[in-house]
């Protein structure tokens, strides 16, 4: 910053120096005669100054002028520019630091993502294994249940068949018994004589009469 300031001052003082040199050159012809008078009356320094065309009041005025200009420039140009540059430099530094932090965070996030992916893969594998085991158990269970149900259905069918058979046999027995009874009744009604019926009735009456004794 200082170097910039000095360069700026040099750049600003250069036109002033040129202007003063031109002014001095214009006055040199007059000053030669004046210098001769100084040499004659002053000393070596005055003579040298006279030879180089230096006019002390002009030099002092230029120096004061230069200082004022330098101060004004420093106050209203250099200082804000320097502040802006410092601010920008700070911003750049902050940006770089932020970028570094972001880079670190990105790396961390990448690492976490990789870990999570790895963990997710492990979990997925675990879930897959468990699911396979569960499905295998479920298949076995369902198979057993289906077998049990099939067995129960077969057993029930057998029982139903047996019941049906028993019912059929019972119906057949009943029908046979009914036919036997009907046939026997008809045969007995036709074949038994009245005397035999009377004898049987008397015998049955005696049987009932003696039943309670």
């Amino acid at each position: 910053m200082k170097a910039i300031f000095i360069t700026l001052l040099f750049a600003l003082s250069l036109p002033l120096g040129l202007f003063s040199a031109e002014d001095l050159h214009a006055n040199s012809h007059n000053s030669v005669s004046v210098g001769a008078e100084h040499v004659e009356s002053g000393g070596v320094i005055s003579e040298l100054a006279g030879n180089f065309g230096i006019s002390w009041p002009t030099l002092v005025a230029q120096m004061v002028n230069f200082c004022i200009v330098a101060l004004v420039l420093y106050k209203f140009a250099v200082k804000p520019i320097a502040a802006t540059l410092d601010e920008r430099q700070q911003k750049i530094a902050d940006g770089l630091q932020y970028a570094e932090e972001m880079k670190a965070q990105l790396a961390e996030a990448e690492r976490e993502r990789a870990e999570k992916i790895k963990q997710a893969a492990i979990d997925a594998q675990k879930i897959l294994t468990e699911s396979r085991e569960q499905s295998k158990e479920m298949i076995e269970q369902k198979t057993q249940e289906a077998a049990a149900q099939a067995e129960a259905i077969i057993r029930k069918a057998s029982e139903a068949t047996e019941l049906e058979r028993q019912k059929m046999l019972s119906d057949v027995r009943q029908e046979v018994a009914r036919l036997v009874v009907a046939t026997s009744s008809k045969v007995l009604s036709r074949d038994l004589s009245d005397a035999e019926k009377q004898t049987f009735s008397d015998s049955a009456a005696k049987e009932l009469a003696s039943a309670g004794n």
Partner: protein
Amino acid sequence: MKRDQKITRLAKKLVELSKDNGVVTEAKVGEVLAGLKQVQHRHHLTVLKTFLNYLRREIALQTAVVSTPGPLSGEALRAIEANYSKMYDRPITAVTKKDTSLIAGVHVRVGDDVYDASVAGRLQRLAENVS
């Protein structure tokens, strides 16, 4: 409901009054009916119906309905009367009833009790045992 209970109790008492030595007789029943006619109960018809039902039941308990396909000897009938009178400890009167479906034998019913010694009944029991 209370009225029905009263009528029932009255009918049962009337049935008891209709008995002579534990047997419902026509004369006693006539006396009871004459008494009822004199009293003129408020629910006369209901009392008479209930009395008739209990009277029928009582007569059925005192009667042995002997069903036979043919005539039965008097000796056999008396033997049946004596036996069931002794069994039920009340006088039982035997009444014959012709039933040719029995083929042969005797079928006796006393109240709700049935005694069967007929050929048809035996065949029926045989059929039931077979099936």
